[in-house]
């Protein structure tokens, strides 16, 4: 092997890891982007749903031996349903409130959630027992790729495509887009925005749970998860722009790959590069890459 092909092999491998990391970030963050854009609600507690998804997956796999795909579905469904109760009971009270109130409320929710998680699951990360068919490596064009990461990438792209269809091509999607663009107008032409919010919130929380479950083998579900990864979710959403679908997708890819490459080339500074890049990007485009300029 000559140095050039060695470098190429390393870059392919790094790029691959970057993309799989990006997909996890995307699936978790896209719901946050939609709810923030549509309801203008600063929901910092979004990571709580991702953590819940991870825990549900862990319990399904380790305690009940439920097959992996069903466990993913269970994470999505159970958290969606639970989030409806939260939305009706708690979030709805703060829709008209100022941003500070919303931030304080959702931070409070994070602390309640991590206290509960710690009480229930202790301080150790929940075990994730992947099925055998997701372990090991797959050989593609002479390169070995870990099967699980490959699955994450394929799944992430499929989700992105499904969401695009749902938002761009369906009636529900048209309602959502209308409400994001102009809530008052959407309401005045007869869209039940209250119900739409609830549905969208449930979808967004479900996506977070799905992302948390999907990425559980990389970002281990653990009680302080919602605080630990909050910064990354917020970076993806703010770089991508609120209320956009492809924004978080592109942003997640950028962040995931840049973060991984930065750590590979400059391991000593790798952890800071991503913040520098975010600051630069936001100085250039304060509303994110695809955010509506208001």
């Amino acid at each position, binding site marked *: 092997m000559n140095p050039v092909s060695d470098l190429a092999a390393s870059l392919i491998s790094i790029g691959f890891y970057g993309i799989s*990391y990006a997909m996890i970030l995307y699936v978790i963050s896209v719901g946050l982007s939609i709810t923030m854009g549509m309801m203008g609600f600063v929901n910092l507690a979004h990571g709580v749903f991702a953590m819940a998804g991870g825990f549900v997956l862990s319990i399904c796999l380790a305690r009940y031996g439920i097959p992996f795909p069903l466990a993913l579905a269970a994470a999505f469904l159970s958290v969606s349903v639970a989030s409806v109760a939260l939305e009706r009971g708690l979030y709805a009270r703060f829709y008209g409130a100022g941003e500070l109130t919303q931030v304080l409320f959702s931070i409070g929710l994070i602390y309640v959630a991590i206290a509960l998680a710690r009480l229930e699951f202790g301080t150790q990360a929940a075990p994730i027992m992947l099925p055998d068919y997701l372990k090991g490596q797959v050989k593609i064009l002479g390169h070995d790729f870990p099967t699980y990461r490959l699955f994450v990438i394929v799944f992430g792209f499929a989700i992105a495509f499904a969401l695009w269809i749902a938002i761009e091509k369906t009636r529900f999607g048209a309602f959502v887009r209308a409400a994001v663009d102009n809530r008052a107008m959407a309401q005045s032409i007869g869209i039940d925005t209250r119900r739409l919010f609830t549905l969208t919130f449930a979808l967004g929380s479900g996506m977070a749970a799905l992302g948390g479950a999907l990425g559980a083998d*990389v970002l281990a579900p653990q009680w302080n998860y919602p605080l630990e990864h909050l910064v990354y979710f917020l970076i993806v959403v703010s770089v991508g722009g609120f209320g956009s679908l492809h924004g978080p997708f592109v942003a997640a890819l950028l962040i995931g790959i840049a973060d991984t490459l930065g*750590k*590979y080339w400059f391991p*000593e500074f790798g952890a800071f590069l991503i913040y520098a890049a975010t600051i630069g990007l936001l100085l250039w485009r304060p509303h994110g890459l695809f955010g509506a300029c208001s």
Partner: protein
Amino acid sequence: MTRIKAPGLFFALAFAGLAMFSGSGAVSAQTIKIGVVSTFSGPAANFGEYSVKAMQLYEKLHASELPAGVKIELLVRDDGGPNPDKAKQLAQELIVRDKVQILAGAGFTPNAMAIAPLATQAKTPFLILNAGASVVTTKSPYIARFSFTMAQSAAPLGSWAAKKYKTAFTLVADYGPGVDSETAFTSAYSASGGTIVGSVRVPPMTLEYAPFLQRVKDAKPDVLMVFVPAGKTATGLMKGFVDLGLKDAGIKLVGPGDIVPDEELANMDDGAIGVTTVYHYSAWADRPANKAFVEAWQKEYGTSTQTNTFAVSGWDAMDAIFQIIKAGNGVVDGDKAMEVLKSYKDANSPRGAISIDPETRDIVQNEYLREVRKVDGKLENIELETIATALKDPVKDQMKK
């Protein structure tokens, strides 16, 4: 009014009785207050939790050995992680307001350093339960360490690895203990004829190690020495090591025991099998003292929880505290307590024979070469051999020369 008087009188009498009862107790009973400042929240919450559980367990099982009427009260405070200011403030409150006679704890080296001057001023013995940088015990004559030093495991590991593997790469978390273990491993490995082909320091709370491990893979070393904080970071590293194909490429993974923590092994999958580490303790060691310790622990806290390094530190420290109390017959005097600690020996600790070095007040203990193996479907750290017996901190030995 008279109707209220009767019950009032009754209560007054009851109170008086209670006061007499507790008063008579106070004459003979003496409460020794022990302040524990360690980490009970955040990613390192295990540090304090396991230590205190072990201390309470020891106290419960050995309560009858205390001089008649002497009681122990643990005052537990959470420093939340590597927060020297917070740790110092908590220790100060414990000393000044709560009047503790003994301090223990310090999950993190910076916290231990911050508390050290207080221990000196108040002449309060301070028993270190985790913090592993060599320098800690030099910061106060009232410090004695019951955990380990990073170099204690990394140095024997380096000499051992050099005999079997020609080239090595080191990957450590970029903070005190990581740098300590990198230094100790590198100097021992080079001194024994090995070649270091590369080293990388990573942020301490990294979960995704792929980019760093790709560098290692590119360098093609025979052996990779890793130190990352115990916990999910270690689990993440192990997954990356397998996923990226380093294991298949034949690279041997070694490190101090922190990379395969006893309580985390259940979360690692078979990729961890064969990882070789050097450490002072394993929950699966078959010494009778350890078996008794594990049995008592699981009886108290459930069979799903494991003993670990934090637990054994707490256990041994409590044993030493009992000796202090017994020697003073229920009275704790700082200087006399330090004399007891300096000559402290326990041939029968769960981790083997240990003692405190009278010169440095640092722990002297055995280091074991261990390998992760699957026993009855579960991963365990199996001790293969005692790689160093009654080892003093190698860094302090070096400093003397």
